[in-house]
């Protein structure tokens, strides 16, 4: 350089002024700690709220136990005393929260087992269902959306949009029943219901194959609606990004249209899709009751449904706890993903 050029705003521009490091914690660690504290607070609020709601409803777990057996008034009173149900709601709440702090959900009368054991046994079913449907619907929906935007206004776009509309407008339980009729009843390709073939004693790879065969139809039924959502969001987001100046710069550089599209535009268009994935996990976690019922899957949705109708308050609250925890964790992961996808998002 021949002459020293005065440069405005170099050096620290955009990196923020170097603040004195407070309490010697790295920003990332401080961020994680703050999020953790937030999570604990959210969970406590959710549990207090849910507990009070459940107490507002008539009936308790002793009613549920009494419903199946002939119990005398004395026996009922002593059972109430044993489970602390004779205390004031406030005392019950404090006791419940104390119990929860030790990760104990209490006793589940309809299963005659600790609620925690019941939930842990059913969690994998829901987890597999949710993970498979979220990843599949996101990938397939995004591919459709991107293809539609690539051929915006052309026949391909029109075809995809119509297909999306169909998926969007058909309730998933109807799709589920249609799938069963076609692939299980008529064609006998896949099992009708359940999580595994009972009493076959499969192990290893055979067992995995068996479970996978049972999951194909329910996962498909759970995906259809969301494929349409991802497709529509993906298309709109791509078209929005393609209008931005940097896309013109990329074209001006002489890059191939494919690179402009799939490298420059797509990555910028992914954020709304990731947001949607977070929402989908949250809603599927306890909300797949219909599909779980149709396919006879012992998942969280059905567990919650049974618990509500049989006044099994401990089990219900346990399901609420696990579902909320899943939502909190997924939100955290989504925020991390934002940071990976968009360098402008800061730890804050």
């Amino acid at each position: 350089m021949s002459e020293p050029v005065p440069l405005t705003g170099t050096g620290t521009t955009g990196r923020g002024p170097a603040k004195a490091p407070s309490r010697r914690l790295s920003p990332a660690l401080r961020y994680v700690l703050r999020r953790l504290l937030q999570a604990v607070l959210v969970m406590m609020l959710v549990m207090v709220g849910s507990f009070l709601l459940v107490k507002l409803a008539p009936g308790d777990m002793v009613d549920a136990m009494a419903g199946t057996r002939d119990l005398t008034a004395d026996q009922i009173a002593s059972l109430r005393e044993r489970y602390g149900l004779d205390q004031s709601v406030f005392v019950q709440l404090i006791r419940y929260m104390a119990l929860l702090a030790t990760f104990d959900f209490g006793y589940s009368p309809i299963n005659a087992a600790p609620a925690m054991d019941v939930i842990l046994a059913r969690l994998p079913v829901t987890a597999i269902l949710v993970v498979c449907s979220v990843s599949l619907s996101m990938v397939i929906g995004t591919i459709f959306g991107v293809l539609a935007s690539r051929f915006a206004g052309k026949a391909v776009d029109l075809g995809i949009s119509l297909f999306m509309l169909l998926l969007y407008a058909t309730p998933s339980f109807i799709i589920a029943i249609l799938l069963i009729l076609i692939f299980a009843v008529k064609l006998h390709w896949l099992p009708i219901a359940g999580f595994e073939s009972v009493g076959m004693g499969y192990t290893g790879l055979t067992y995995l194959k068996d479970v996978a065969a049972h999951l194909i139809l329910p996962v498909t039924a759970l995906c259809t609606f969301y494929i349409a959502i991802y497709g529509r969001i993906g298309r709109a987001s791509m078209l929005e990004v393609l209008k931005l100046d940097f896309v013109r710069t990329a074209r001006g550089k002489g890059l191939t249209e494919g690179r402009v599209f799939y490298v420059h535009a797509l990555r910028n268009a992914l954020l709304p899709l990731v947001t949607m994935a977070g929402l989908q996990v949250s809603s599927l976690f306890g909300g797949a009751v219909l599909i779980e019922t149709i396919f006879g899957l012992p998942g969280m949705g059905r567990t919650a449904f049974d618990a509500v109708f049989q006044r099994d308050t401990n089990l219900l609250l346990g399901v609420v706890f696990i579902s909320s925890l899943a939502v909190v964790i997924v939100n955290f992961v989504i925020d991390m993903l934002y940071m990976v996808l968009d360098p402008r998002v800061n730890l804050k």
Partner: protein
Amino acid sequence: MTLLHIDNLRVGPGRSAPIVEELTLTVERGETVGLVGESGCGKSLTALSIMGLLPENLRVRQGRILLEGQEIQSLPQRKLRHLRGEKMGMIFQEPLTALNPVMTVGSQITEVLRTHRGLSANAARARALELLTLVKIPDAEARLNDYPHQMSGGMRQRVVIAIALACSPSLLIADEPTTALDVTVQAQILRLLKQLQQEENLGLLFITHDLGVVRQVADRIVVMYAGSVVEEGRVDAVLDAPRHPYTAGLIAARPQGSFAAGAPRLADIAGSVPAPEARPDGCVFRARCPRAQSRCEAERPALVRAPTGRATRCHFPLTEGVPA
């Protein structure tokens, strides 16, 4: 051979009135041509036509664009793509949004080199470093890993320039490269562009609406009004003694002297630029022209070129020495 020759170009949407009309323009190697005009007169569209980046609804309807003798206006995109970035580079108006926010500055420079030159990752990075140093970005090595949002507007425009120059093109098109920058940064960027243009012997087509900037950087000036060229010539000749009433009006409308109370009001050109479909017959400027006569209504003036290279599209041009 002329580096860039635009001959009688007409650009517009399918059926309705063209936006750019009868546009003829040349840029020689090592020459800076200032393309001047009001917003909406077709300056940027001219640039996008050259690059082959016109919006989908607009097309080159007539005329030719020759780059080093090769007709490029009818080339298919896949062939044109090889010329963009390789033979011609473009700098855009908005440095803040011209770079991809989720890619590092380094990768945005290296991808041009890898696409056109097939360089290895290491070679491309070395050349990117060289380019950042060329556009006077301090601490270039570290800056390669920065994202655009970590840089100021001036720095980002330097990166955009580095990208445009990556493959040593022979033609550089700069579309209002300093409009979005503050004045001190503007001066630096102009000085840098001028220096690079001389060092690399570039043909530079500099689009602006700022006559002061034109005088600073350009050798020749081309004044556009409502889609066509109205005046052309050496910068000093045109700016010191405009012949077209529109050019004279533009020069008179520049702020001069003080803004203090009692200072004379800024001169302006009465009326506004007609929309493409509302352009009148005859001379398009006549409705706003103080010298218009009946002939201007009846007959569209041709661009008359003098042997000196000076050209004017006016039936009644101002004669030299007579103030506007």
